């Protein structure tokens, strides 16, 4: 961060004009809906919007008096951590491998990027089919090996299922960035280390990994946001938050209450809480994790 280049504009209005398109997009797709959510979180309305009543912080009070909601924080933490760590770990491994492939590299890459094009709900259904108790391919195989798979009643199995589906779907995205990061690492550095006798393992941890840290950091932020916000489709399709509420992460409840139960006030209050959580998490990441990043 030491040597910053500053570009100076002579004119006063040009920078604003150049910023305008981006500002408009952010305003329309982020600030406007976010402010709507803030507004609605203070209201209670019936399904058709015929009556709107200002209820102050009632929606929030209700939320934090609900033990199920508080438990869902823990579920969300476990889920997000697993998705981020597994998602990053596996895709880094795959990217490192794919980077070494000489023949047919395009084929590998295309195949690995493919799942990204799959809609979350479809990913959920896909994994659900494989793991459906008694008829799914995987659960049938597990059954034959003497392992009773039942995500309908076993919370650990259910969590494993949604984590697997969420990770599988995000791996492509992570892979793409890791691969690009790997390819931008100068060959000369690695060759010099190799000549000095560093093992591939050593080379990876002392050269490749530190040089990948900006990418990894970026992906960490993206993956946490993904796990927090983008996974309700998978959960809805695979477990609907069950068994009990054991896979009902925060965003799933936002989706359920808002779109299935049509309780807009309660749902908006939850999304405000969720927004606050992610802001705090992102600040923490930038404050503490970013220090370890070499640009």
């Amino acid at each position, binding site marked *: 961060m030491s040597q910053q280049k500053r570009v100076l504009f002579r004119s006063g209005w040009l920078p604003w004009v150049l910023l305008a398109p981006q500002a408009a997009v952010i305003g329309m797709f982020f600030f406007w809906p976010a402010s709507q959510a803030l507004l609605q979180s203070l209201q209670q309305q019936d*399904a*058709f919007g015929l009556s709107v009543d200002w209820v102050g912080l009632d929606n929030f009070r209700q939320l934090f008096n609900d033990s199920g909601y508080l438990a869902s924080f823990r579920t969300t933490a476990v889920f997000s951590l697993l998705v981020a760590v597994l998602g990053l770990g596996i895709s880094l491994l795959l990217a490192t491998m794919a980077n070494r492939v000489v023949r047919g590299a395009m084929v590998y890459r295309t195949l690995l990027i493919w799942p990204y094009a799959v809609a979350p709900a479809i990913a959920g259904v896909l994994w659900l089919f494989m793991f459906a108790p008694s008829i799914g391919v995987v659960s049938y195989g597990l059954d034959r090996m003497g392992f009773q798979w039942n995500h309908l009643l076993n919370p650990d199995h259910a969590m494993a299922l949604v984590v697997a589906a969420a990770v599988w779907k995000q791996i492509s995205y992570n892979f793409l960035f890791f691969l690009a990061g790997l390819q931008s690492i100068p060959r000369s550095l690695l060759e010099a280390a190799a000549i000095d006798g560093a093992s591939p393992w050593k080379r990876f941890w002392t050269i490749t990994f530190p040089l990948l840290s900006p990418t990894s950091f970026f992906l960490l932020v993206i993956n946490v946001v993904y796990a927090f916000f983008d996974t309700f489709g998978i959960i809805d399709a695979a477990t*609907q938050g*069950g068994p009990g509420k054991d896979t009902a992460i925060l965003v799933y409840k936002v989706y359920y209450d808002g779109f299935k139960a*049509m309780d807009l006030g309660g749902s908006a209050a939850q999304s405000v809480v969720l927004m606050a959580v992610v802001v705090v998490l992102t600040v923490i990441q930038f404050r503490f994790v970013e220090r370890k990043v070499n640009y």
Partner: protein
Amino acid sequence: MKTSLLAASKAALLAAVLAVNSAPALAQTEIQWWHSMGGGLGDWVNDLAKDFNASQKDYKVVPVYKGAYDESMAGAIAAFRAGNAPHILQVFEVGTATMMASKGAVVPVGQVMQQAGVKFDTAAYVPAVAGYYTAPNGQMLSFPFNSSTTVLHYNKDAFKAAGLDPNKPPSSWPEVAAAAAKLKASGHKCPFTTSWVGWTQLESFSAWHNVEYATKNNGFGGLDARLVFNSPLHVRHIENLANMAKQGLFVYKGRGNTADATFVSGECAMETGSSGLYANIKKSAKFSAGIAPLPYYPDVPGAPQNTIIGGASLWVMAGKKPQEYKGVAAFLQYLARPEVAAESHKRTGYLPVTKAAYELTEKSGFYQANPGTDVAVTQMIRKTTDKSRGVRLGNLPQIRTIVDEEMEQVWAGRKTPKQGLDEAVRRGNELLERFQKSAKL
């Protein structure tokens, strides 16, 4: 999405061209009808509209499939907020209280009929069906379109293999457990399962035994109704099911209607579920299946009373032109015609809407030719009591989800039946309080 948008814009263009070309000659009033009937049932809905359109010249009913029940309802709500709701909306029975509470958004069917000058006799309708959609003052709020009820489906071939009499299905819960034990002994991995746990094991169970599911006549008497399905009888039933689950006699197959597929495939030998499953079984099952009345506890006085309905009704949305309402009334009147309603009943397995339709079906010999199809009807064509008329509570879809969540803990052995039911009642009542608050505003 894109293709449908494209198709829609094409259709709009076409409609505009047609309108310009033939505006004065064909002043047909269009009636938009949003529904949730996919697959074979979608064909049924389209045929109804087609036949109605062919039967007269003034109105044209346009059925539009809008996804599953909750999706079409959410879609219609969004459309209403944007000022372009359909004329007729099909709403599932658990959405009834929400629709009723939204007085400015809907017009009672009784009022639509009256203002259109259509002769409309609520007494002609099957009470247990129409009663659900009728206001305390006797006015019919929505038109009972497709109603099913809870029955026991059983696999006759599996019964034979287990040494059970395939023509003598279990009628009580102790008999269900005994039959399940025999099925298990014969090597069956899933002797008994159920779909819609909340609907079959608590809501319909309560009406069948003539006990309250919620106070205030299950919500018919006011918005301050509260759940009471943790009575000793309910606890006894859930304990019974939990014991069956422990012994592998009852196998839980998931929420909603996911268990249906396991019965149709032959994996599970008995299932309590919707009578509407009949058409599907007839089409896909590779075994001989039977339908029996919902089991009950014979020692409970007043049981069996009647079961309650599932399915959906047609609501008329507010803010349309008088001429359009006339068309809506004409269409609903058409649907209630004995021959039309009887044909719908035979085709879909849904309950007949009117008594005349039932009698017509009976006369045609349909029930003799298709044994079991009358089970649901006889369960419903009875005089209902205040406790058995149905369950009309706000936020009922969410209450069913709560029941699912708590019962999953019970089947897994992590909560006792009493704990699970108590917790479901407590959580459900919170929702009811919330609904009462928002509906009063």
